[in-house]
């Protein structure tokens, strides 16, 4: 009740405060950023929100992460566009935190800064040979086929080998495997970047191994993505039947998790419904369980290209009393030949100057979205600074996870406003200040109307090729179209 009254008091005090808007800057225009903006707009009538993004295009991983053959998942951009078009919301594309503007400057100009810029780097395995040619992170591959302007020139060789190894068995790993194995005529009608389509059409990759440290009970993918890849036409699926044997601890895990149960069932069914051998020339997908990479192999010639992966076999050991099991090595090793490795073992966030950051976890230390100060031994918060999305909770979850994540951060902001920890009555320059500063630095930002021009052009180009859109993949072209 108290909260309700307080909220009422705030909305009342803000409604008469149009001259004192609550200036909010959200950094990053992916799902976490847009959901945060949407919830802030609803919760605070006086809120004026600017969303900045380093790319000229909005929507983050909905554009550059979601697989091109999942158009339904991208429908959420309709909702995000409505947020961007709200009169109290503005989009500033081509504005990079740390380059165009510093965090300190943003915090000076806005009452509230919410960082939701995600995770633009990768976890590393830390095993020998990780830098060999032919080894990429799944993120790079995904950004490449999705037309991210930083990865259009990724040096990817799909013609020198017929075998690819994907390390990891989560949904990103499955996306990547599916894009490699799916009939190309099916990809040709998606919004896949043209350079990727051309390259995939010429690809010699015929055999893909999906490698996981643990067993089918612990596979990190979801049923939808698994069902989809198992359903690819004319694809031979191989799973070692012995891997499906369950220990009592496995049974316990399955009992407690509906999603693990359903994933396990799908994998079991796939074993029984397959012929024992692939036809000659048939494309193959191998699920390899209980293996962890020990080192990458290379030939002795000077090319420096990866030629295989050496694995250590693992077994599962219960992890304390948590019910979770982790993989431990057995000292038995085996080699698998391949010419391409895609590491799908997790994304990692990148810090900016002046931001408390946990390098080990790759995220910002926070409590319910409030950023904790770096001061050792003390639980103090950075005034007016918040996080949402992957930067806040690590690189996991689906789009909808960000909805609840943003809701939590916005609740924290609301509480802090109610308790007087933020000072909306103290005027800040907000949008006007940002515009002036960008101007003085010759940073030409892309407003939402600029993105709409890109959008229209991409859709028009796409319709000529029977695709929903033909993505513009170069910075220069994106900025040119946006500024036309």
């Amino acid at each position, binding site marked *: 009740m108290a909260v309700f009254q307080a909220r009422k008091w705030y909305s009342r005090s803000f409604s008469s405060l149009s001259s004192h808007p609550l200036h909010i800057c959200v950094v990053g225009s992916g799902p976490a950023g847009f959901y945060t903006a949407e919830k802030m707009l609803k919760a605070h009538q006086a809120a004026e929100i600017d969303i900045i993004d380093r790319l000229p295009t909005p929507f983050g991983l909905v554009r550059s992460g979601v697989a091109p053959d*999942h158009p*339904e*998942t991208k*429908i*959420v951009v*309709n*909702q995000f566009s409505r947020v961007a078009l709200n009169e109290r919301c503005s989009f500033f594309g081509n504005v990079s935190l740390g380059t165009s503007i510093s965090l300190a400057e943003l915090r000076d100009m806005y009452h509230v800064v919410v960082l939701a810029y995600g995770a633009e780097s990768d976890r590393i395995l830390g095993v020998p040979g990780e830098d060999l040619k032919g080894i990429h992170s799944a993120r790079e591959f995904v950004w490449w086929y999705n037309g991210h302007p930083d990865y259009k020139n990724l040096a990817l060789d799909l013609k020198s080998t017929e075998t690819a190894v994907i390390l990891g068995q*989560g*949904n*990103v790993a499955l996306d990547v495997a599916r894009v490699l194995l799916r009939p190309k005529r099916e990809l040709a009608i998606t919004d896949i970047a043209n350079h990727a389509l051309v390259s995939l059409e010429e690809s010699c990759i015929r055999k893909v191994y999906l490698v996981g440290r643990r067993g089918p009970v612990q596979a*990190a*993918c*979801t*049923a*939808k993505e698994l*069902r989809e890849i198992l359903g690819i036409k004319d694809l031979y699926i191989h799973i070692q039947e012995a891997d499906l044997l369950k220990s009592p601890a496995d049974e316990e895990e399955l009992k407690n998790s*509906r*999603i693990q149960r*359903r994933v396990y069932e799908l994998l079991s069914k796939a074993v029984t419904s397959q012929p024992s051998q692939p036809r000659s020339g048939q494309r193959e997908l191998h699920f390899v369980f209980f293996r962890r990479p020990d080192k990458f192999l290379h030939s002795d010639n000077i090319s420096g290209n990866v030629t295989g992966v050496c694995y250590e076999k693992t077994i599962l050991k219960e992890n304390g009393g948590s019910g979770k099991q982790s993989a431990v090595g057995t000292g038995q090793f085996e080699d698998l030949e391949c010419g391409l490795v895609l590491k799908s073992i997790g994304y990692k966030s990148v810090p900016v100057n002046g931001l408390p950051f946990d390098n080990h976890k790759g995220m910002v230390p926070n409590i*319910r979205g409030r950023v904790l100060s770096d001061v050792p031994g003390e639980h103090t918060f950075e005034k007016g600074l918040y996080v949402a999305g992957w930067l806040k*909770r690590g690189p*996991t*979850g*689906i*789009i*909808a*996870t960000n*909805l*609840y*994540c943003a*809701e*939590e951060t916005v*609740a924290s902001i609301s509480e802090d406003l109610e308790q007087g920890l933020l000072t909306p009555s103290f005027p800040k320059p907000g949008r006007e200040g940002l515009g002036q500063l960008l101007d003085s630095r010759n940073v030409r930002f892309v407003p939402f109307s600029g993105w709409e021009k890109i959008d229209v052009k991409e859709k028009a180009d796409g319709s000529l090729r029977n695709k929903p859109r033909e993505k513009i993949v170069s910075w220069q072209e994106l900025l040119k179209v946006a500024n036309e």
Partner: protein
Amino acid sequence: MSPPVSLDERQLTSVTRAGYLQGSCSRYLHPLILTISVAFSIPASPPMLLSSPTSSRASIPTLETLKISGGKKPRVSQHVIFGKHHPFSTTAAENEQKEKISVTFIDKDGEEKHIKVPIGMSMLEAAHENDIELEGACEGSLACSTCHVIVMDVDYYNKLEDPTDEENDMLDLAFGLTETSRLGCQVIAKPELDGLHLALPAATRNFAVDGYVPKPH
């Protein structure tokens, strides 16, 4: 936004009007009045008819009768009538009638909202038409779990078609999943569902403190 009442006047008027325009309305209207419990309405602009000079509404004595029976908890048995009595239901397009059922949404704070949902409409659409804060990120294309609703009564849950594999795949990822969870976009209004109570999952609020570990994507 129409107010959330069990049988509003507009709907009653529509029934009356439909019968009236048929000429020999009483033949159809009378049995209807005696047993009717579901509201029928014409979607397009019935209020205009109230002021229509050509409408001799006053001569139709059934309005009150309808109101009384309509005030009771609606039961559905009448849509058969529409099938049988062809001329009643098929005339000009604007005469098309729609049955509606009562649905109650219980929001995150436990507040109830009663709405009318036309047969054939999904609960996601119905929620959005009535300003109920049910998310619908993929707009009903079975690619997300944001329109997760909990059917409050297991008997009603059992009246629904079983969820498809595709819906179950999405429910796997829904926050606060229960035994009677469904996706709002897959629950389509049908007569048997009249009186349905749907709750929006509230547990989602504290997902971080509850130690929820989001599934990887």
